[in-house]
């Protein structure tokens, strides 16, 4: 499909131009007609001149407004994901290819976006006052994110009523892209991932490092090792110069499994809590995996910003199929299960891990955060 992806320097395809005579334009035209009637009736020469002025204004309005948009080329920059409660900024590079005429008073908007996005995004438009002839600039429209999920971006529109507001001109462009609205991440209170009965050292995942915080081993000195890592006392007892090797303490691997609920609001709270836990796990340096109802793994174990982003995107795109009626999900539809696992076997929390209620104020706060999740920005 043409325009399905955006490459640098490639502009969106123009699919149509529209000229709409709206209220002020009708008023202008009617006034012009009344002027000529009055001028003819009264043979009032100043009225004849004013009529000519109005008619000339009408023509120059058409010329200027046509030229205003004729050279406009717009490229929608790759959209950044937004998060519910925050905004998704759709950015456009507006280039004025006209060599003589500047483009003025441009509004860039996604027509009917709330309806097409399933009310996931609110309407908004970007504005630029002047784009000089041959120049370009970036315009941003900040849409409020209302619900998680993918949003397909298609046609967008550049409109202007410059110079006199007589006509509303618009250029419609097509550029298919997709934007993902991530779930709102609930604020995690405390550290619910410290599963009281299970979290412990995981020896197989110890990672050797000189910058660690626990002693791991001694080895021979090698060129380039800092002097402060030399184990002087041990070296005094042995022949070769030894250096101390520390190990980083490794937290447990956490499986975050969320449940399905028939109630949409409850389901969204569960998703929000899961997103909050993902961010919390990343902040506390834990590996984590994400599982959906029926222990279906959505994202495997991992860590780091990209892993968090993948988890949030999985949560954003997760849709409830047939409601689960077995296992833990069937027991409590308002809950998350958190398990510490080693290999494939849960270590803490019993058979299914511990269950955390998503509405428990001691654990989650579902208030809108002041800023969107880190992964969304």
């Amino acid at each position, binding site marked *: 499909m043409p325009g399905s992806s955006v490459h640098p320097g490639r502009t969106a395809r123009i699919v149509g131009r529209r000229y709409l005579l709206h209220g002020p334009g009708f008023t202008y035209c009617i006034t012009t007609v009344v002027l000529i009637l009055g001028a003819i009736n009264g043979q009032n020469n100043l009225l004849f001149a004013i009529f000519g002025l109005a008619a000339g204004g009408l023509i120059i309005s058409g010329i200027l407004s046509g030229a205003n948009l004729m050279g406009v080329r717009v490229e929608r920059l790759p959209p950044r994901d937004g998060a519910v409660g925050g905004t998704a900024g759709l950015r456009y590079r507006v280039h004025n290819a006209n060599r003589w005429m500047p483009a*003025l008073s441009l509004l860039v908007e996604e027509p009917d976006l709330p309806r097409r996005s399933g009310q996931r995004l609110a309407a908004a438009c970007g*504005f630029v006052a002047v784009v000089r002839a041959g120049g370009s600039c970036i315009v941003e429209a900040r849409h409020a994110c209302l619900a998680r999920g993918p949003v397909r971006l298609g046609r967008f529109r550049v409109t202007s009523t410059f110079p006199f507001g007589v006509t509303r001109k618009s250029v419609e462009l097509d550029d298919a892209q997709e934007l993902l609205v991530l779930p709102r991440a609930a604020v995690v209170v405390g550290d619910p991932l410290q599963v009281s009965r299970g979290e412990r050292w995981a020896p197989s995942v110890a990672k050797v490092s000189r910058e660690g915080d626990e002693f791991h081993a001694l080895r021979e000195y090698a060129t380039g090792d800092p002097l402060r890592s030399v184990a002087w006392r041990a070296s005094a007892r042995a022949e070769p110069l030894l250096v101390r090797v520390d190990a980083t303490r490794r937290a447990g691997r956490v499986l975050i499994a969320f449940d399905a609920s028939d109630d949409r609001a409850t389901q969204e709270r569960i998703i929000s809590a899961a997103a909050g836990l993902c961010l919390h796990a990343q902040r506390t340096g834990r590996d984590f995996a994400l599982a959906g109802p029926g222990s279906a793994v959505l994202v495997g174990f991992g860590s780091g910003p990209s892993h968090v982003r993948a988890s949030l995107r999985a949560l954003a795109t997760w849709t409830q199929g047939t409601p689960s009626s077995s296992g833990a999900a069937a027991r409590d539809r308002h809950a998350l299960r958190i398990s510490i696992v080693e290999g494939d076997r849960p270590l803490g929390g019993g058979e299914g891990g511990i269950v955390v209620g998503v509405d428990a104020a001691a654990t989650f706060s579902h208030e809108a955060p002041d800023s969107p999740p880190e992964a969304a920005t």
Partner: protein
Amino acid sequence: MNLPARLSRSTLACMLLAACAVGVAEASSVLCLALAAMLVGGWWFNERASQAGRRSVSMPRWASTTLLALALAAAGVRGYVEQDAISSFLWLLAGILALKAWQDRRPGDYGQMVTVSVFMGIGATLSDNSLLLGIVLAALTPTAVHAAMLCQLHVAASAAGRDAQAVPLGAREAATLRRLSVVAVAFGLTGAVAAFLFIPRGIGLRRFGDFGQAAVGRATGFVEEVDLSRGGLISESQTRVMDVRLADLAGTIITEDRSPLYLRGAVLDSYTGREWKRSRADDEARVVVRRLTPGAPESDLPQRSRLRLDPDADAVVQRVSIRQTPRGDATMFTLWRPRRVRVPGGTDIEFDIVTARMANKGEGGRLEYEVVSVPRLPADARIAPSRRGDIPAQSARMTEIAASVLRAAGIESVASRRLVVDDAAAVQAFVDHLRRTCSYTLDVPPPPLREDPVEHFMLVTRTGHCELFAASLAALCRASGIDARVIAGYMATEFDPETATYLVRQSHAHAWCEAEVAPGQWRTFDATPPAGIDELRDRRNTVLGRLTQLFADLRDRWNLNVVTFDAGSQQRLLGSSERDQPWFARFAESLGRGEEPDRVRAGQVVRRLREFAWVAGAGVAAVAVVIILTIVHARRRSRGAASEGGWAVAQPDASKLRRELDRAFRRVGFPRPAWKPPLRHAAELADASPAQRALLEDAAHLLYAATFASPGTARSDSMRAAIASLRRMTASGSGVTAG
């Protein structure tokens, strides 16, 4: 300066010019100043509130609604009392504008204020066509165009949810807008000139009543009926109406000044309902219609059999050229009773044998004619010593006044006992009485509804204009048994000795009285004090008078070339040898009548279209040259910025910052190569003070943010502060060395 500040100033200028237009149209400097003061006060109030960072104290809805209702009511009352819808409309618009100036500003308000200002300008045109108004409109046009453009920016920014205060509109953007305004105004003026020159005149005149005509009564001018119930200030319009040359019967032009000339127009012999009107003249024996063909010799007009005068005794030929006449019934002005008439272009003449009123029943537009008349009674005209018959008096009170005046003059007051030979002295006694007891003014308050205007003038106000003097004299004459009538016309006093022509202007419109001093013998009496005429003559000899005359000349040129531009002027300018009217006028007229344009041959149309295409092409070429020159000039000015390779296109302050940064590098002895980024170059400065390096690095960071980050990241005020700091640093002149 940000967008709202520029828009606010443009809107204020627009409103002030509209106030001037209304002041000119209403001939009221007080109204103009009061409106301007209210507008400036409201603007200042809102600006102060805006600068203080708070919303202005908005007027409550009930208060604004009440004020609007009051303005509507005032306009309605004014329209009813003065019978002037245009004036009421202007007052209403002025009230709305003053109201909006004091209200809290919302995004759409600026557009509304500009629109109301434009409508005020148009409304003023309906009332007045003076040179002063033309100047005001010439200033209003570009101001309104510029304000309208700024309004579109403001409304669009508001629609995008952006704080309009944050929309930067630097000098470069403002210059762009100004250039576009110039282009738009140039194009609009081209349209105005084209419409002025090429739209056919004389078609459709008064098809919709008085709509579109400059309101009568606001300025001096000839009227077909004298309505004494109207009040208000009457301004003296200098619009040129006609030229009159006098000659004798041999054709020799009379070069001596015989002013004042009383040019008779409407003869008003019926007083009903506070108005002097013409009595019905549909009697075929009384009214004669003469059809004059082009180039025909003079046509004799029928005369009353009772008056047998030698037509050649002291006869004067008047060559009259009226610049604009309406179609169908246009009064023709003559000195006294016309005897013969000739119209070179041919037309239909209606002549009233009783009142000697002559009217053109043909097409409108310029009218030229020659009339032979005898301006004075012959010296040998004898008046029979008969007695006067009874004439119905206007009122008992008027009879008492007339009797007391006559008794004071020693003349018999009872009509049946007074000799007819004393009637002229009686009328002269009334003239003296009126000139002695009443004074002349153009500012007349309207009389009370239940009171007769003439009695109110003679007994209460004792000040008035010529119509009141003439009506009072006629009423006194009728009250004393002497038949009298009011004449409306012009009193020509402005004689140009170089051309031996009387220039007749609107301000020369006058009303006087004719009294029947003998059976069938009517004599002219003018009760208006002649001081005004003397003042007009004396005024020309002073320095101020000469300046006034200079301005009057300008005004005359304006009136001659713009205000009174008619079909004849159009014909002379565009040329048409075959017919009297321009070809497009005939074409449009034939279309308007629904006839086949059989008179317009295809070849003529093609030839005229070719001529029109030449003229239009030349106009379009001129406009195109202006536009191209403007664009070339603009590009030359912006070439420096354009060569920066797309740097800081969206933020003009960034270009300035970049230039200032480079200048700072040069001044500290470490010029930046074109290939090196400013931040890296600043980092390589050695031996510079930490403050200087920090300043340069901060400026470089700002420049990067303005160039590469999203809009709004680098604020204009931050960049301006950085530019100022760099300038201070370079001014101090401390050098550093490169590392």
